[in-house]
């Protein structure tokens, strides 16, 4: 196996990693840096947690360790998951293995990068609004985001508790079916994981998919043509494809950002510089001035923006108009999916509207531009429905393109078998790894 130090020197997927790899371990895995690990500092991409060494392992990490997996390291990410390109990180920004001048996607960018570069690697990621699908698509790997509540969030550093879902990224479809059942299951330490029916893999085949009309709007030319080709391939595999109208999807984006930032702004309240992060504040200040000073200095711009947005949407006089209404929209979106999934096994669309952008283009994007880039991944996340991104093509420059299947709650089964079947019929390329 390649040396992690030299690989990381080139791609910067790891925030921290071990020095010696145990070649006899049954498999190796990494964890996004918002999953707590007692073996490594855990900072969720933020300086407010600099130096934080958790007292306990996150549930998905301990479950993989229990079956013999070796945790290689913690992968870089957008601060607390706030971003689409993993560029909002206080630590390293991972580089796309197909073109290091481009982003890996986000917020589980380091995870997708590690899955693409390292052989036989299983990467634990977390999705709130598309943070597994997006980087999986940009880095040309498989990524499964299970149903909300399928995988215990014990030990996950919260972005938005009602939306956060740990999942898996890997270059091999078989790894998803092998390891998702391991990290799934009820965990009394996370009550929201205790409502789930068992995950049983019966190999249920994908027979019909619905493509929302809106899914074809706003796509780059390369993505559109790769997606059309992929539909043809699917039909060749005997899958029925039908275009459907899903009018509520366009409301998912605002509802998602309201709920996600409302929850995030409360989750981030605890970082006041008293117990975590650099301890270099002026202790002569009053406590609230001290908190303000610390938060102004050590939160990144995107974190500050989301704290402000989320605080606004839950204020007296605005809560009903924003937060409460967004909760209602979530129900409407779920019902729209259910209606379509009554007649189809999955809803299909491209994962991202474009291939991994160059860093110089990203620096010219406004916050709103990058929020909008998530319009295809956000609805399924808002609805808490399981979804899978698979590589489905490459553009002229060889950059990967992905498509995303969304199934009904608790129906990961059909997604996992679809990944295996797709892998047989589609030639997945691996990046040429340089050290």
């Amino acid at each position: 196996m390649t040396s992690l130090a030299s690989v990381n020197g080139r791609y910067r997927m790891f925030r921290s990693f071990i020095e010696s790899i145990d070649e006899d371990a049954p498999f190796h895995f990494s964890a996004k840096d918002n999953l707590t690990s007692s073996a490594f500092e855990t900072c969720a991409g933020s300086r407010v947690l600099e130096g934080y060494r958790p007292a306990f392992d996150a549930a998905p990490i301990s479950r993989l360790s229990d079956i013999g997996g070796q945790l290689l390291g913690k992968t870089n990410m957008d601060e607390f998951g706030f971003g689409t390109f993993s560029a909002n990180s206080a630590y390293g920004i991972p580089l796309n293995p197909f073109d290091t001048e481009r982003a890996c996607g986000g917020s589980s960018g380091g995870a997708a990068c590690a899955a693409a570069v390292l052989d036989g690697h299983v990467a634990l990621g977390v999705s709130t609004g598309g943070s597994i699908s997006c980087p999986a698509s940009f880095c040309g790997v498989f990524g499964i985001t299970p149903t909300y509540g399928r995988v215990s969030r014990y030990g996950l550093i919260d972005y938005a508790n009602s939306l956060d879902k740990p999942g898996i990224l890997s270059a091999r479809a078989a790894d998803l079916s092998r390891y998702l059942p391991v990290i799934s299951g009820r965990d009394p330490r996370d009550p929201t994981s205790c409502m789930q029916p068992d995950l049983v893999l019966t190999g249920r085949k994908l027979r019909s998919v619905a493509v929302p009309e809106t899914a074809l709007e706003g796509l780059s030319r390369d993505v559109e043509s790769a997606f059309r080709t992929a539909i043809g391939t699917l039909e060749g595999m005997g899958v029925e494809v039908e275009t459907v109208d899903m009018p509520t999807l366009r409301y998912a984006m605002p509802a998602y950002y309201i709920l996600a930032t409302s929850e995030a702004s409360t989750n981030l309240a605890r970082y006041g510089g008293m117990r975590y992060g650099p301890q270099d504040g002026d202790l002569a200040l009053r406590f609230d001035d001290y908190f303000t000073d610390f938060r102004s200095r050590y939160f990144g711009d995107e974190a500050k923006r989301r704290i402000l947005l989320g605080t606004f949407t839950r204020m007296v006089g605005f809560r009903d108009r924003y937060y409460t209404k967004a909760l209602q929209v979530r129900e409407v979106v779920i019902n729209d999916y259910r209606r379509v999934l009554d007649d189809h096994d999955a809803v299909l669309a491209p994962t991202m509207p474009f291939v991994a952008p160059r860093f110089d283009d990203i620096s010219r994007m406004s916050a709103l531009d990058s929020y909008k880039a998530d319009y295809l991944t956000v609805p399924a996340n808002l609805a808490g429905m399981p979804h899978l991104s698979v590589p489905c093509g490459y553009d002229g420059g060889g950059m990967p393109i992905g498509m995303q299947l969304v199934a009904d709650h608790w129906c990961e089964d059909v997604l996992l078998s679809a990944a295996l079947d797709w892998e047989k019929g589609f030639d997945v390329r691996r990046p040429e790894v340089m050290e």
Partner: protein
Amino acid sequence: MRIGLEIHVQLPTRSKMFCSCPTTSAESPNTHVCPTCLGMPGSRPVLNRRALELGLTIAKMLGCSIPDTTWFSRKTYFYPDLCKHFQITQYDTPIGEKGVYYLGKKPIRITRVHLEEDPGKTKRVGDQSSLVDYNRSGIPLVEIVTEPDMSTPAEAREFLSSLIADIRHAIGLQECDERSIRCDCNISVKEERCEVKNVTGLKNCERALMYEAVRQTKVLKAGGRVERETRRFDEERKVTLPARKKELEADYGYIGEPDLGVYHIGKMAEGIKVRESPQNMIRRLAQEYGIETATARQLVSTSVPLAEFFETLAEETDVPTAVTWTAGVISANWKSYDRSEESDRRMVSAVKRLFAGEITDTECSIILKAVMTGTDPEEAGRSSEDLDAMIGSFLDANPSIVEDYRKNEKAANRIIGHVMKETGGAHPSSDIVAAAKRILESRL
């Protein structure tokens, strides 16, 4: 004057509200803590169902209507003792609403009852710094909010002490430190009201309210206007002071707590039986049996089981007989009575025989005492006969005592003093008192 209270009471669970840390007092700071009650990133709350049960018991005791479902909310504010900088509390769906509590005959309306977690404690060290102890962080609290139905500070204190006694009785709370009761006190002399936040203990509540009542009256008399504001109570100087402006502008930005689900409490509440509170029992005994409230209070405050025994006797005989015997010999021996079903039955049967005219007062008294003290009836009879004889002859020699007793019950003390002196403490004083009263009553 209108006074309304928000009362916080710690619930006697063994572990904290959202983790398994003990709630007992710790030897040193920050030892009864874990990732959850320290609010460490990645930790999660798991609801202690016992806290929910106890909260529902109180809500039912206060006659609240209880919703079918309830959930928790996050109340966000920045303070060093609040480890997550949000408190898990209830906002939209308190476990109880629209209850009522009777202070004597006066109804005090209860606005709502909800559950929340206690924050930690800050402790000042010198002038420059404070330390934080999170042992208290996550201890379950019930908050009871009243309508402004009290009219004086003294009444507010009376309400508090009576309410706390009832809560103790309903949920089996041990005698606790007075200071563990915390109140926010709302008071208005005329129109505008002030809130005095976070007052600790009954005494301080009354003091803070009294200070406010005087202050507001003075302001109005001088032709001024009472500003609507939040104040705090300075325990050292016993005055209320305006709170800092920032605290006034607090907008807690409530949202649902997404880590905890929706709890179906309707069924749970149905299954909870609330023990009748002492206050309610006094009211009920007076009403149901037509006895004096003072008598009812005497029975209940001696012991609730004694009052229950009274009810049994009233059923088996009649109310006057039941009063005479429970308030007399039985009450006198109740504290040392080692109760059993069998001895209860023997006592009831003795009083029934008396009621049927099969035995005399003296005989009944002997039997009761023997049963309650676990002595041989013969011996109890003898010593009791000695006692009766001594009192009898003393009264024969001093017939004026009977006359005096008609006017003032204290006249019985002369007999008691005499017997004590003569016997040198051979009879328990409770026996002497009971015997003296019984014999006096028989000679009236």
